[in-house]
């Protein structure tokens, strides 16, 4: 078992394997994404309260979900790298951070674009937007620490530990922000009466969530491949790859 994991997680083996998987992820992300967007933008009914502008949720909500999901992936693989010293896990964590930060940023931008017609302002200190912003800061901290330390092994370990500390903090941050918001603003801003979601809106939303996950799968594999090539640039398997070109 252990040998198998060791062999399977070697960057060289991963490099070969991932080349076969990436197209599947990419193509299915594209197909499901296009179909989900079509359903969301053209088929789903108009919201009786928010009009057409609600349709941004088909990007906004999956992006927000992804930003949290990717943080979890990042922290889990960082923990695996820290505990079992598997280099591939460290590479996955390092490759995930910028993607997660981009999703958090996307969620913030779409959220504020939605906020302009709904709340009358691009930015409102709404609990969810605020915790998304803090999540973005956590990603920045991780990436800054990762790039500040020259030695790759200890950069991985240090930023991995930071990611794990962040995971312990995320629920605390989330609930304290939510609590802070209810105290400060009451039910004046964000509490548009949310009707339980219509099935025609729910299906495209879930499709988009699946498409985003597949997209992340494709991108993280590509980025991890690059990371593997870069880190192993002086090893034999990369040399051999280059010589074959």
């Amino acid at each position, binding site marked *: 078992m252990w040998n198998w994991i060791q062999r399977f997680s070697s960057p060289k083996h991963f490099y070969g394997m991932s080349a076969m998987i990436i197209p599947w992820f990419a193509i299915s992300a594209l197909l499901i994404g296009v179909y989900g967007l079509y359903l969301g933008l053209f088929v789903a009914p108009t919201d009786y309260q928010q009009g057409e502008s609600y349709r941004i949720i088909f990007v906004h909500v999956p992006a927000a979900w992804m930003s949290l999901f990717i943080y979890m992936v990042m922290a889990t693989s960082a923990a695996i790298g820290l505990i079992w010293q598997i280099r591939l896990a460290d590479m996955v964590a390092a490759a995930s951070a910028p993607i997660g930060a981009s999703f958090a940023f996307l969620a913030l931008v779409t959220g504020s674009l939605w906020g302009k017609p709904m709340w009358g302002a691009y930015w409102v200190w709404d609990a969810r937007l605020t915790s998304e912003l803090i999540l973005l800061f956590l990603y920045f901290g991780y990436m800054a*620490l990762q790039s500040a330390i020259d030695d790759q092994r200890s950069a991985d370990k240090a930023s991995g530990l930071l990611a794990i500390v962040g995971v312990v903090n995320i629920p605390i941050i989330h609930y304290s922000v939510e609590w802070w918001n209810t105290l400060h603003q009451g039910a004046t801003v964000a509490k548009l009466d949310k009707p339980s979601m219509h099935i025609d809106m729910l299906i495209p939303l879930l499709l988009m969530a699946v498409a985003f996950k597949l997209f992340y799968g494709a991108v993280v594999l590509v980025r991890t491949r690059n990371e593997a090539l870069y880190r192993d640039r002086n090893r034999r398997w990369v040399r051999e790859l280059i010589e074959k070109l």
Partner: protein
Amino acid sequence: MLNAFYHLLIRDLRLALRNRHELANPLIFFVLVVSLFPLAVTPTAEALQSMAPGVIWVSALLAVLLSLDRLFKQDYDDGSLDQLMLSPNPLMILVFAKVIAHWLLTGLPLVIVAPLLGMFMSLPADAVSVLVYSLLLGTPVLSLIGAIGVSLTVAVNRGGVLLSLIVLPLYIPVLIFGANAVDVAADGLSVKGQLTFLAAMLALAASLAPLATAVALRITASR
């Protein structure tokens, strides 16, 4: 083990007391930053009072942040941190002693001077006592969480900005509950919930942060 804890605590306190002006710096910074705010706005009592909790808490946060460096920096530079790691005592306990020393030297003075600043910002008397309680519960959490950040960045050149980037997001819950407690107290409402939450965060940080700091120090030392 307890002996080592005690001796390390005493050592850190003694070292700091021999270097008094450095000890006063965070405190002066705290007072200075808070007194900048009335100068920047119209200093009416109502305006000051409404921003006082946030201003005092953010300033305390920054004062602790700036003082975090001395938690491990000197020991790292002169090699005594390596000696600590070589000692047979659990590193976690030693870290805890250092953090307590750090809090006694920076957090506690902030707590003591806080009523003065509450007066500057025309806080009512009830709110001032809550300010003291909230800082008393909150500043140790800042030292504990900060210790993780310093131990990760102590070996990095010009790690100061990096440290704040790492540590400040983790400080947000403490800031929210601390400032909110004072805010609510100024309105004359009960603050039991906020203070209990701060105490819970202190318990959590005191039990987990030394562990994470010890791991982080070993990572730093392995470079």
